[in-house]
Structures are given as structure tokens and as C-alpha cells.
């Protein structure tokens, strides 16, 4: 599967990126297309946050200009000059009016900011779930993501597929966030804010991406040694693409007699204790579901591209790609490894 391009930049984000460019023109120019910037929202929650943040920037920017300006003025105007050595300036101990003014004005600013914020909190957090919504359960594992579509009977890992949601055909996705071990956090900046996955504390969030494409994110709560490589890819599919994807995922694992040897190894070794391949004896749940491994562009939650070479390296010793991953090095012979890889590469 080819990664698709995410949203092109619009004018307003370009403004903010321009600010960033003071430091880093080249990297933005090259990297912008895969940069998970909060200034390129592509879904209602992200968009509402984006507009709120513009407003807040305006207010804080004004405060900055006024107070910073005062400070600059004082520095320039009142620095000591050679001529006035010896005299102390007039001593002023305070002024009730002035002090009252700079207490009351901030109070008013806080009230405005607060009311605006409260409105958005309720709008995003308490939005009722429409009937047409797609339900997905996200389970965070040390260091990979499990995605379950309870109503579609699909289980997959690391790469989330959701349909595009348009004005005419709203189909938001509601994510139920659970954790199998420690705290994680689901964050795809262009689609929405982050929400944590906490054991014993089910959470929920929603997204309604309006443009098809690939959106990147990653785990945003430190969860152990490989937290940095707990990457996240969300594919927003057009309705047709999504239906095709669903159809494919609902099939059991591909049976291909030419790789029976690999399947045999898989079922003889401990692989099946940790991994599931629908339609075979492998029903483990500790590791990612491999039934349609080949429908994913990456393995090990984005740590490496899904190529036969990387699969071989991974199975020989996961630590070379992701030191500290919870899959052990399987100690297979070269031949067994080749067979297993051959088998895995048939799992479309």
C-alpha cells in the first residue's frame, strides 16, 4: 500500500510555518508533507482547536506586545546615564489606582478566555455520538497499537483505517481507548487532540477526517523503553477504498500451499502463542494480529518498512530494529526464518 499525501498547506498554517522558518527553512520545505503539524487540521476537533488557538494567540500576543513594550521602553528610557551620577531618583512607593487597574484588566481578560475555552471543551468533549459513527476500540500495548472494529469483526494493528467523513455523508469515528499494560496516549495532531489510554480507565475520543490521506502520529505518553518507536499511522480512506479494505480484512488468513513449510514453522514455534492468524491454529493475543500483515506498510508500529528483508531481520532479532521490543529473538535457523518470511509475505 502506498502512503498517500496528507493535506497540502493552507495560507494560515503557512503563516505559522513561516515563523518556524526563521530557524529552519529547509526542513520545513522538505518535510512539510509528513509533518504532523497542529497547524494543518483535517478534522472537526482539530479544526476547532486550531481556531481557538488562533484566538488565544491573538490575546496573548496583545498582552505580550503591551507588557513587553513597556519593559523595552523602561529599559531604554530609564537606564542610568553618566550625567546623573550621585542623585537618587524620586522614590515612589506605590499607587492604589494604578495597581487596581492592572488587577482588574487581567481579570476581564481571564473571563473572556475562560468562556471561549469552556464552549470549545463542551463542543468537542460532549458531542453526541451519531448513529452513523464507526466504533473502533484502540488498545495500547508496550509498544504497539491494537485496533478492533467490534461491529465489523476486524482486528488489526498499528495502522488505523477510517472512512472519510463529509458534510453530506458524515461518518465520524469514535475511538474507545483502553490499555493492556501501562499508560499510552493516542495523538494524531492533524485529526485531533490527544487522549490517554490508561488501564482501568476507559476513555473516548472522536475524529471526522474530511480529506483522504495518510496522517502520522505517535504515542505521546512515556510508556517504557521503546516509547519513541510507538508510531501511529492513520489512513483516511474514501468510501470505496474503505469498503474494499474492510472486505479484505474480514477474510481469514490466506492459504497458499507453496508456503506450507513456513506456516508449519509458525505453528510449531512459539509464534502462535503470541500472534493470531485467523483461520489457523495461531490465536495468541500478546503480539499484533498478523492475519493481513501484508496490508500494512510498516512493521513494529512504524519502526521499519514492511519488506521481506526487514521481516527477516525482525524475526532473527527484533532488537536490531527496535531495541527493547517485547518480542524475543526467536532463534530460528536461517532456513526456518526464510520459510516463515515467505509465509508471512503471502498474508495479504
Amino acid at each position, binding site marked *: 500500500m502506498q502512503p498517500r499525501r496528507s493535506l497540502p498547506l493552507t495560507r494560515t498554517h503557512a503563516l505559522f510555518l513561516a515563523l518556524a522558518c526563521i530557524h529552519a527553512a529547509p526542513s520545513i520545505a522538505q518535510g512539510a508533507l509528513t509533518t504532523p*503539524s497542529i*497547524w494543518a487540521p483535517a478534522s472537526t476537533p482539530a479544526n476547532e482547536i486550531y481556531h481557538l*488557538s488562533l484566538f488565544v494567540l491573538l490575546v496573548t500576543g496583545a498582552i505580550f506586545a503591551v507588557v513587553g513594550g513597556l519593559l523595552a521602553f*523602561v529599559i531604554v528610557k*530609564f*537606564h542610568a546615564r553618566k550625567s546623573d551620577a550621585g542623585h537618587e531618583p524620586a522614590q515612589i512607593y506605590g499607587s492604589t489606582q494604578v495597581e487596581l487597574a492592572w488587577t482588574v484588566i487581567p481579570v476581564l481578560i*481571564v473571563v473572556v478566555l475562560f468562556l471561549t475555552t469552556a464552549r470549545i471543551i463542551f463542543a468537542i468533549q460532549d458531542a453526541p455520538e451519531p448513529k452513523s459513527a464507526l466504533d473502533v476500540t484502540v488498545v495500547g500495548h508496550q509498544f504497539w497499537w491494537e485496533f478492533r472494529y467490534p461491529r465489523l469483526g476486524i482486528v488489526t494493528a498499528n495502522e488505523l483505517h477510517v472512512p472519510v467523513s463529509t458534510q453530506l455523508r458524515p461518518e465520524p469515528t469514535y475511538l474507545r481507548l483502553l490499555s493492556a*499494560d501501562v499508560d499510552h496516549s493516542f495523538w494524531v495532531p492533524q485529526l485531533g487532540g490527544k487522549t490517554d489510554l490508561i488501564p482501568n480507565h476507559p476513555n473516548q475520543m472522536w475524529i471526522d477526517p474530511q480529506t483522504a490521506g495518510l496522517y502520522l502520529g505517535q504515542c505521546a505518553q512515556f510508556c517504557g*523503553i521503546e516509547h519513541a518507536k510507538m508510531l501511529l499511522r492513520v489512513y483516511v480512506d474514501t468510501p470505496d477504498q474503505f469498503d474494499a479494505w474492510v472486505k479484505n480484512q474480514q477474510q481469514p488468513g490466506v492459504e497458499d500451499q507453496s508456503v506450507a513449510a513456513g506456516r508449519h514453522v509458525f505453528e510449531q514455534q512459539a509464534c502462535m502463542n503470541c500472534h493470531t492468524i485467523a483461520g489457523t491454529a495461531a490465536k495468541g493475543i500478546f503480539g499484533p494480529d498478523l492475519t493481513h500483515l501484508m496490508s500494512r506498510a510498516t512493521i513494529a508500529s512504524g519502526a521499519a518498512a514492511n519488506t521481506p528483508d526487514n521481516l527477516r531481520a525482525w524475526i532473527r532479532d527484533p532488537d536490531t530494529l527496535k531495541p527493547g521490543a517485547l518480542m524475543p529473538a526467536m532463534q530460528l535457523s536461517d532456513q526456518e526464518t526464510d520459510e516463515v518470511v515467505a509465509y508471512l509475505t503471502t498474508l495479504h
Partner: protein
Amino acid sequence: MADQTYPIPGTLDIAPSRGARLLEWLHTWVVTVDHKKLGILYIVYALFFLLVAGAEAMAMRIQLAVPNNHFLSPEVFNEFFTMHGTTMVFLVGMTIIFGIGNYLVPLMIGARDMAFPRLNAFSFWMSAFGGLLLYSSFVGGFGLYGVGSAPDVTWWAYAPLTAKAFTPGHNTDYWALSLIVMGFGTLGAAINTLATAFSMRCRGMTLFRMPLFVWLMIVTSGLTLITITPLTAAQVMLIIDRYLGAHFFDAQAGGAPIVWMHFFWIFGHPEVYVLILPAFGIASEVIPVFSRKAIFGYPAMVAASVGIAFVSTTVWAHHMFTVGMTSVGNTFFVLSTMMVGIPTGIKIFNWIATMWGGKIRFATPMLFCTAFLFQFLCAGLTGIMLAIAPWNWQLHNSYFVIAHFHYTLTGSFIFCIFAAFYYWYPKVTGRMLSEKLGKWHFWLFFIGFHLTFDTMHFVGMLGMPRSIYTYEADRGWSTLNFWISMGGLIQGVAVLIFAWNLIHSYLHGQEAGNDPWDAWTLEWSVPSPPPAYNFAEDPVVRSRRPLWDLKHPQDPDWKYER
């Protein structure tokens, strides 16, 4: 006036051998109960750990300078940022404020020592022992073979990552136990500071004539009492879980990891104000002296400090906007958090008003304080942005947060600490710090600081999360990270210049005299360094600026003070 100089102890009749003299000199430092010596011990200890934690930061920055770097392994990186944060907050921050407080509070209120000198020594040694325990983790745990077992669970150490099941070694135990030990030391220091400031003031030093630094040490100590203790309590629970098999934070048994988060931030949020309030105190001493004006609105400054302390105990869950609180809960913490901006604003405005109409001398202490004003303004405004819960859902745990709090911790706290060094070093050692090196230190640190931490805001908004030991090359973060790291190295150079300045000026600095800055508080009325008993006679004061009264007998302060 006895010309007791530090640090050589009283002379003996028969000149003892060099080794014996050295031993005796060390001995006086170990058994001392003098608040000045203990203050110096605290400060030296904190400076040492500033270098250590700074070196850890440098290592992290080298690792992150380019994508997919292999300078540090993931384990070591995780240990380093945990240790960097823990060290900076507890071993540098807490010790240096209580060190400076220890040295200055008795001098400023005209007392001869702290209220409980022996408790004071006990507190210091507890803190010192806690720090050593924490750092022994680098060699401890699995023994000297291969890796040590430094804590690697972040400085907020969220459950259940800290449970035996997920961190089986002793990493987490080192973290919890050493901080519990340090906690007792800190508690002792806070109690002592309060008792000193309330019960040891010289004649005429009413509460509203105390220097603002003393006020802020009172507020900080009060806040310490009610913030360090919840951390201690939560860490005791964690240790009970880990050693006795209890279930406080065990999700399988129905325990709630969320509870740890609340406990930690009930400590963690006020803790950051514990650090910044003494920094405010330092600014409130330095800015008036170098502007040649009385502090503007003293009563409002005191009220604002107390107000900040109170409000800051109600805002902790702004670190938890993403954990799935109810919308009402989120809304409450948005409001309480933003309210902190009001008393803080009052302080900023009062400082600016103090400078207004003054004749500002930009000596090094004032340079650091002016930069502090600017950086704290920015830091506060990014704090307000983070307090906007929906925006926080984007910014939380990104480098934007790292930028915000380094603006407060490095850009405000450390800047004020540096100001304090340049301002009071003459009092402590009798010699001035070199102004020339000081200017180099300031400008390099200022440039490095802005290069590093301004840039972090952007990379955070471009989606870079914190606590990651490496990142992908295609994210558009590479160039920014490179400049962040460069800025870090510039800061490192600046700190080395500072360290050199401390040593060089100690040996060759210009003699300071009692009152090199033409200042107004009591500590400048005694020789530099002050004799063991501080004041030959107990001083008596009539206003907030006793030395001003002395220097301007026709126009004393007590005629005007409100």
C-alpha cells in the same frame, strides 16, 4: 570588629602539618551548625549537580541533534531525562533555594542564626544523602556489571509503569527512596525557615518591614510543607506496593493509576511555584537596588505572593487534561489555572513600575533580572496557552511543554539564581565576581537559551512528543532539533565560564567591602564575609530599607512607607 575570614578556622599555637590542617578544615564543615556555612554547603552541592544534570541535558541534546542517532542507547536516554528532571528539580532547585535562604534569611532579619541550627545541619545532610543515594543508582542495582539502574520512568513516574511488573529492577526504588529521604530534609529546612522568619526577627523588623526575599521564603516554605508531604505519602504507597505487594496503583486489583497522577501533581504543580517564588524574591531585591528605587507596591507584592501560593494548590489537574476528566472537571481547572496569571501579573507590573523613573544600572545581576522579566512574561503566556484545555490536548507532552517549562525553570528560575550569585557573591566571599566574565556569561547564556528554547516551541507544534530518544527523519523536525542542540551547547559554554568566574574571582577578584552595590537591606551592614555571629550588636530597624534610612537621614523611608 573581628576579622574572621572564611574558610580558614582559628589558628593554633603549634603549626600543625598540612594534612592535619586540611582534615580539621573539612571537619569544621562537616560538624558546622552555622547557617552561613550550611548555606554554602547547600549551594556548592546544588552547583555540582547543576553541572551533572546539565551534562545529562547536553548528552540528550547530542543524541537528538540528528534523527536516528545512536549516541545514547534508549535505556540510557530514558535514564538521563528522568535523572535530569529529577536532579534539576530536587537536587539543584530545592537545595539552592534553601541554601540561599539559609544564608540570607537570618542576615536579612537581623538574626544571629536560624531558629534550629542543629535541625538545619540535619536537613542539609539528609538532602545530601538523598542525592547521593539517587546517583548511586548509576552503579547500583545489578552491581557494577554493565548497566546501572538509574530511574527511567520520567520524573512524574506514572503508575503502573512503576509497578514491579513493568520495572522489575531497582530503578524505581532508587527514585522513590532517595526522594523520600530528601523530602525529610526539605521538610526540616522549610520548618526551620518559617520558625526563623517568624521568631528571630530583630527589634523593629515587623512582618511588613521584612525584605521581600524573606517574605517569599516564608511563602515558599509554607507551600513546601503542604506539597513535599503529598509526594512523600504517594512514594510511601509506591514503596508499599513494590515491597509488600499492596495494590494502591495496581489496575488488576481495581486500583487506579489515575490516583497516582492526582497525587503526583498535587505535589508537582505547587512544587514549580516553590522554585519560582524565591526567584521572585531575588528579583525583588535586585531590581530596586539597581533601579535605585524602593520596590513599587510592597503590600501588593506580598499579597500577590500569598495569593499565588493559595491558587497554585487548586490547579494541579492542568497537567491531566488528556487523561479523560469530565468536561466540567476540565473547565474548572482551566479557570483556576488562568487565575494564577492575575497575581503573577501584579508582580510583573510592580517590577516594571519599580524600574519606571529609576536610574537603572545594568550590572550583571540586573542584566539577569531584566532577562528574567522578559522570559517570565513569555513563559507565563505559554502557560496560559497550555491552560486552554482543548489546545492542551494538542500541546500536552509535546516539546511545546518542554519549551514552556524551561522558559520558567531555566529562563526564569536559573536566571534569577545567576543574578543572586552575582549580587551576593561579594557578601559571601568578600570578593566581586568579574563583571567582564559575567557579561560573557550572560550574553552567551541568553543567546543559547533563546536558540534552544524558542525553537522547541515550534518543533512541539509540529508534533514532536517529549521523552523520545530518537525521531524519524521525514517528520520535518531535524533542522530545528539541530539548532536546539547547538543552543544547548552554547549554554554549556556559558555555564563553564560562570564556573570559571566563581573560582577565578574567589582567588583574584576585586575586594568587595561591606556594601559594593550601595544596597539597603541589613546583610550589607556587616562585613563581607560576615563574622560567625553576624551582627556585633543586635540591629534595630524602623523601615523596609534600614540602610537607606542610614544613608539619607533627612529623608528616611519610614516617613513614607504605607
